[in-house]
C-alpha cells in the first residue's frame, strides 16, 4: 500500500538548512496497522504529512496504492487524497463554520458523489453520533469531534487512513474509545492504518512500529519494514 524510497525532508530554519527527516525507506502492506512513535520533534508528523501528500519530500519517492505521489501536482494530489486517503488529526481540524454532518459530507461533495448526505448520515450512525449531525464543532466535546473527524476520514471509502496523534488531545477514556473505533474500522473495512503517537499503549496494539528519533528510524526498536537506505 505504502512504499517510501530514500524519502527525506529538509527545511530552512533561520536561513540555515535543517533536516527534519533523514533519508528513509518504508514498506507498509495492505491492511496493516503501523504505529509511528518517537519523542516530540522526531519527525513523526512530517513523515505522516509526506505519506498523505500534504507536503513534498526533499528527496526520494513515495508510492501510495501504486501511484507515485512525488510526481503529482497540487491538484492531482488533492484528488488522490480525496479518493485514497483519510486523515485524522490530533486537533480534529473540523471546519468550524460547518455542522457535523456537513463536515462529513464535504469530501464526498468534492468527489462529486450524489449520495453525500445519506452516506454522511450513515457514517454518523457508524461513529455513534446519529443525533448530533446538526451541531457545530464548537458544540461538541473533544471525543465527539474526533469521531466526526474519523467519519469524515471514511467518507470516500479510502484504502488508507492516516492518524496524527488521534488520542493526543483527549482524556484516557475518550482516547480509548477512539482507538477502539479506529481498530474496528480497520477490521471491518480492511483499510491500512498509519498512526502517529507517543503513547506506548496505543503503539502496542499496532501490527508494526516505526520508532523515530531526531528524524532517523531507531532500528533496534522498529518492528516494521522501515529502515535507513543502504
Amino acid at each position, binding site marked *: 500500500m505504502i512504499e517510501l524510497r530514500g524519502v527525506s525532508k529538509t527545511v530552512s530554519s533561520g536561513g540555515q538548512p535543517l533536516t527534519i527527516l533523514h533519508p528513509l525507506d518504508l514498506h507498509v502492506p495492505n491492511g496493516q496497522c503501523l504505529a509511528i512513535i518517537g519523542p516530540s520533534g522526531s519527525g513523526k*508528523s*512530517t513523515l505522516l504529512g509526506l505519506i498523505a501528500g500534504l*507536503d513534498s519530500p526533499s528527496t526520494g519517492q513515495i508510492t501510495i496504492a501504486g501511484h507515485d505521489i512525488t510526481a503529482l501536482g497540487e*491538484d492531482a494530489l488533492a484528488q488522490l*487524497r*480525496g479518493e485514497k486517503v483519510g486523515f485524522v488529526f490530533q486537533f480534529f481540524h473540523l471546519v468550524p463554520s460547518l455542522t457535523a454532518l456537513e463536515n462529513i459530507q464535504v469530501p464526498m*461533495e468534492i468527489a462529486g458523489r450524489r449520495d453525500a448526505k445519506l452516506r454522511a448520515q450513515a457514517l454518523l450512525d457508524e461513529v455513534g453520533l446519529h443525533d448530533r449531525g446538526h451541531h457545530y464543532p464548537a458544540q461538541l466535546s473533544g471525543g465527539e469531534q474526533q469521531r466526526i473527524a474519523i467519519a469524515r476520514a471514511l467518507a470516500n471509502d479510502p484504502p488508507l487512513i492516516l492518524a496524527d496523534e488521534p488520542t493526543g488531545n483527549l482524556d484516557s477514556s475518550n482516547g480509548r474509545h477512539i482507538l477502539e473505533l479506529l481498530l474496528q474500522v480497520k477490521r471491518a473495512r480492511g483499510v491500512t492504518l498509519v498512526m502517529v503517537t507517543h503513547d506506548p499503549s496505543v503503539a502496542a496494539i499496532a501490527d508494526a512500529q516505526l520508532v523515530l528519533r531526531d528524524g532517523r528510524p531507531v532500528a533496534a526498536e522498529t518492528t516494521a519494514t522501515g529502515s535507513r537506505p543502504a
Partner: protein
Amino acid sequence: MRFVLYMAARELRASWRRLLVFFVCIAVGVGAIVAIRSVIQSVRHTFAGEARTLISADAIISSTRPIGEKLAATIDDRLKTAGAESIRSVELATMARAADKPGGRARMVELRAVEDGFPYYGVMKLANGVRYEHGLLRGFGVLVRPELLAQLAVAVGDALTIGSQRFTIRGVIESEPGRRLGAFSIGPRVFVDLADLPKTGLTGFGSRAMTQRLLRVPDAALDGLIVQLRKDFANEFARVRSYQATEDDIGEDFARAEDYLSLVGLVIVILGGIGVSSVTRVFVQQKMKSIAVLKCVGARSSQLLAVYVAQVAMLGLAGSLLGIGLARLAMRAIPSVLAGTTPGVDITYALTAPAVTQGLGIGLLVSLLFSLVPLLEVRHVKPSLLLRDEARSRKPDLTQVLVTLFVVAGLVALTVWQAGSLRVGLIVAAGFAGTALVLHVAGSLLIRAVVPLARSKSFAMRHAVLHLSRPGSQMRIVLLAVGLGSFFIIGVRSLQQNLIAEFRVNVTPDSPDMFLLDIQSDQVEGVRSVLARYQAAGAAPARLLPVLRARVVGVEGRELQLENFEDVRGRGSLAREYTVTYRPALEPNEKIVAGALWDATPSEAGEVSIEQGLSERFRIGVGDTIRFDVLGRTFAAKVTSVRFVEWADSRAGGFMFVFRPGLLEKAPHGLIGFLRGPADGDARARMQTELVAVAPNLSVIDGREILNAIKSVVDNVTLAVTVVGTLVLFSGLLILIGAVAMTKFRRVYEAAIFKTLGATRQLIATVLFLEYGLLGLLAGTIGAGGAIALTWGISRYALEIPFHPLVRLSAVGVAITSALVAVIGVLSSWEVLQHKPLATLRAE
C-alpha cells in the same frame, strides 16, 4: 460545481455577521449611485416628456426687440402656410407696489403679459381651486405668486401699481407652465393681459422686454417651419426654438449632471471596495486552517477560490440589494425635500430600472474586483499547515501581478463607464489614484512622526503607538478613508467661508449696494432728488451712467472679417446684445493694455475701447472697425484701445465696449445708477417706493437681497457637498469598524495576555482610546491639510479671491475626526474588554 455552491452558501451562513461591514460598505455606495441616478432620471423623464409644457408651445419665437411690421408679416405668412396658429407674450422685469398703501414697499417682479389662448400646453394652476381663464386678466386684472402677496402685504382684491398702471389682484398662481427650471429669478412672477401692457408705459423706449410668439404647429409642418423661420431670421434679432430642441438640451444637461454626480457615488463605492479588500484579506487569514482542512480532504485550489469568489458575489449582491433598498427609502424623502423647486411640473420620484441595474452591476463588480487579489492567497495555503505552523511570506507571483493589473484596468473602465466619457473617466481615475498615493505617503510620514511616542513613559501611549505602526495594521486604509471624508467636509466648509468672506469684503461700507436700471433721460432729475434725500452723511453721491444696448453686426479687422449679423452669429457670444456706455476717462478698475484712450473732448467720429478678454477671444484689435446696431441704427466705430477690466471690482460697472463721448449722446438712451443705499431696511424700502413713484419703469436691484440669494445658493451647494462628505466619512468609519472587527481575534488574545499579566480593563481601554484617538488625529490632519491645499488652489486659480487659511475651522475638524474615530474604535472593540482571559487562552 455543487460543492462550490454548497460551500459558498454554508460559509456565508457562518460568516455573514463578520462580513456585515463588507456589504454595508457596498450598500452605502450603491445606494448613493442608485438614488442619484434615479432622481435625475425621474426629473429628466418628466421634463423631456413635458418639453412642450416647458415652453407651453410647439415652438417659440423670441426677440429682445419689438418685432417689426415687416418681419411680423413674414412670420404671419409662414405660419399661415404651415397651418400654425400663434399667441403673443411679453416678459420683462419691473417693479410692483401696493397701489393703496402710500409709503408701502416696492418689489421687483417678473412680469409676463399674455393673450387669450395661453397656454397651448400645460396648465396654469391657481390657488383655492380657481380655474384659469383669460377673463381673469382682462381689464387690468393681475395674477400673482403668493410670495408677492406676503412681501407687499396685499390680498386678492387689492390693487397693485405696475409701471404707471393700476391693476387688481384677481388670483394667486400656484404653478405655471413654461417656467424654466433653475432659471435665476429676480422676483416673483405676475401675469397681466397683453392688451393692458402698453398702458403701463413699460414697453416704450429702452425697455428690456422680451417679445415672444408662442406657436402651435401641426407635427408634420414643424421641422419645415423652423428651418424656414431660421432662414428668415438670419439677419434679424429674433430666434426660434422648437420643443424638440428644448428636449435635446434638457436631455444633454441631465445626462451630464447624472454622470458627474454618479462619480461621487462611485467614489463612495470605491471606498467601500477598499473596505471590502481589507475585510477579505483578514477573512482569508482567519480561514487559513479551514482552507487547509478542505485541501486535505481533496479540494483543489481552484475549487476553493471559486467557493470564496461565489461567496463574495453573494455578499456583493446582498449589499447592492440593501443599497437599492436604502435608495428607495431616500427617494421617499425626496419629494418633501425638493418640493417647490420645480413649480408647474409634477415629478414622480421612483427608482428607475437603468439606475437599479447599474447599481447592482457596480456593487457586484466592485465587490469582485476588490476581493480578487486578497482571495488569490487561498491558492498558497498548504494543507501541511495543519501539521505545523509555517512562516508565510512570499513575493507576489505572476498570476497575482496579472490579476492586480486586470483589477486596475477594471476599475478604470468602471470609472469611464460611470463618467460617461473616456476623458473625464481617465482624469477621475488618475485623480483618485493620485489622491490615494498622496494620502498613503502622508499616512506613512505621519506614522513615522508618531513612532518616537513608542518610547513614551506611559504604558498606554507606548502600546497605542506600537499597535498603529505594527505590520498588518489596518491603519493606512483607515487613514485613507477617514482622511478622505474629513477632507471633503473640512474642504467644503472652508471654501464656503472663504467665499462668503469675499462677498462681505466686496460690500465694504462705502461701496454701492443698490443698482437702478432703466432710468429715462427725463427722469434723471426726479431720481437724483429722491436719492439726495436718502444719501447718508459722508457717503459718495449716487452715480448715474448712460447706457445703450447694442449688437455687433459686422467687423472689419486684420484678423477677423464679419460681413453681416449672420456671420457674427457664427461667432457665438459675440452676437449677444451688449450694454455699452460712453465716457471721457477710465474707471479705477480699468487699465489700457493696447492703443490709447481718447482725450476728454467729444468727437462724432466713432471710437470704441474694447475689453481685453473679448479682444483676445475674437481677435479684434486696435485699428479694427466694428459695426454696431443700436435700436435699429447702424454705425461704425474704430477700436482705438484695449482695456483690462478688474471684474472682481466691477461695482462701478464693467463694460465690454466703452465709446468716446460725442457719438451716442444723441441716440435715445437710458441710465443706470449705482449707490450706497440707506442702512436702515425701512428707509431702503421707502426710497424704492419713492423712486418708482417718480420713475415707474425703473427697476431697483437691492445688492443685499442678491447677496442673500447668493449666500443661500452657496449654502445649498455646501449642504449638498457636505451630505456627500458625510457619506464618504461614514464609509470611512465603516471601514474603521470593519478593520477593528477583523483584527479583533488578535486583540482579544493580546488583551487576555495583558490581563493575565495584571492589566486592568481600564488600562486596556486607555490603550485603545489613545490608539484610535491618534489614528483619528492623523486622519483629521491629512483631511485638514488636503482641505487647506484645495481651498488655496480653488481660491487662487478658479475663483481668484484672496485665500484665508481657516485655522480654527481646521482645528475643530481635526478634533471632531479624532474624537469620532476614538469613540467608534473603542466601542467596536467592546468585546476585547469583555472577554475573560482564561477562556481566550484555552481557545488558542
